[in-house]
C-alpha cells in the first residue's frame, strides 16, 4: 500500500469530522431564518462539535 493522500481528501461530506447533525440538515426543520445565518450556523456547529468530541473522547481517552 502506498502512502496515504493528505488528510484533507478524507474530511468532506455530511459524515465529516466534528459533525453529528449537519447544519444543512437541521436548518431544513426551521422556518426561513430571519437573522444572520452565519451566527446561527456557528453556534449550532460549536455545540454539535462538543457532542462529536464526547463520543470520540470516550473511545480514545477513557
Amino acid at each position: 500500500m502506498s502512502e496515504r493522500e493528505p488528510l484533507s481528501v478524507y474530511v468532506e461530506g455530511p459524515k465529516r469530522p466534528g459533525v453529528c447533525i449537519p447544519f444543512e440538515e437541521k436548518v431544513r426543520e426551521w422556518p426561513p431564518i430571519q437573522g444572520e445565518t452565519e451566527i446561527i450556523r456557528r453556534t449550532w456547529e460549536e455545540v454539535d462539535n462538543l457532542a462529536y468530541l464526547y463520543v470520540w473522547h470516550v473511545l480514545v481517552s477513557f
Partner: protein
Amino acid sequence: MTQAIGLKYYGDPGIHVPPNVGFQYREPPEEKAWMPPEDYDALIADPTGYLFNTWLPRVSADVVAPGATNTMRNNLSFLKGGMAMLSYFSSFGEANRRLREECGVAPAIAGILKAPLDILGDKLRGFMGLCMDLMERRDKVIAACEAMMPHLYHTALAGADPNHEVPIAIWMHRGCVPLVSPDDFNDIYWPTLKPIILELWKQGHQVLFYAEGNWDYHLDAFAELPDGCIVYHVDRGDLLKAHRTLGHKFCLSGGISNVLLSYGKPEQVRARVKEVIEQVAGDGGYIMDASAIVMNDAKPENMRVLTEATREYGVY
C-alpha cells in the same frame, strides 16, 4: 464520568481495583469483542454514527441503542457523562497552574492521539480479533483505519495547546513488531498514522510519541518525519539506539526503568541518570523521564535521587 455512563471496560480505582493504583482496561474475550467482525461496514460508512448508535450502547450499561426502551437513567447517562467529561477536561487548567506554582512542574502534553490500528485493536475488535482480521479481512481493517484517520486527527487537534508550547501525546500500544508483523506496520499502521502527524505538524503542533513497549524495529520509519515534529519517548526500547537513529532530528525522553525506580537502590538510580545524560544528552535534545508513567510503587528516595542527579549532571 465512567460510572455516569456505566463504562464496562473501565476498571475504576477504588471500585474495581485498589484505590492506589491506576485505572485498568478490561478487555473482553475475543468472542465478546465490543465490535464483532460483521460491523466493519457500518464503522467504515459512518464512524461517528457507529460509535453513538452501536458501540457506545454496547460498552456502556446506561446507554441504550436507538429504538430500545428508554428510561430516565438512560437519558441521564448522556447528560451526566457530558457534564462530567466537561468538568474533567476543564480541571486541567487549574491543575496545571497548581503544578507550575506549587511544585515547579511544567505541563508536558495537551491533547490526545491514538493510531487508527491501535484504536481498532484496543476498544473495538480487541487484540485477538484484530490479529485474526489482519489475516482474514485485511481490506476491511485498512478501510476502517482510513475511515477513522480524519476523526482521530480532529479529536487530537481539538485538545491541542492553543499556544503550541507542549506536544499532543500519542499513546502507542500494539502496532509494533512482534505484536503485529512488519507488513502490518508498513502497510497499515504507519501509512494511516503518518499523514495525521504531518498534518498536525503543518498546523504547528508537535507530537510526543509515547512508545510504550519496544518500538526499536520501527525507528527508521519514524526518522522519515520532518525534523523536530515529534518528541520520541523510550519505554523498553534501547535509548542509545534511538539516539543514534533519531537523536539528530528529534528530542528524546524516558529510558529510566520503572523497575529500577521501584526496586533499585538510590545509588543505582544515580548511576543510570549519569549514564543516560552522558550517552544521549551531551548535545541537548533529551528530557529526563521514567520509561513509563510513574506509579505509587516507585520509592520516594529513588525519585528524589532522579531529580537531584539530573540537576547535578544535566548542566551544560
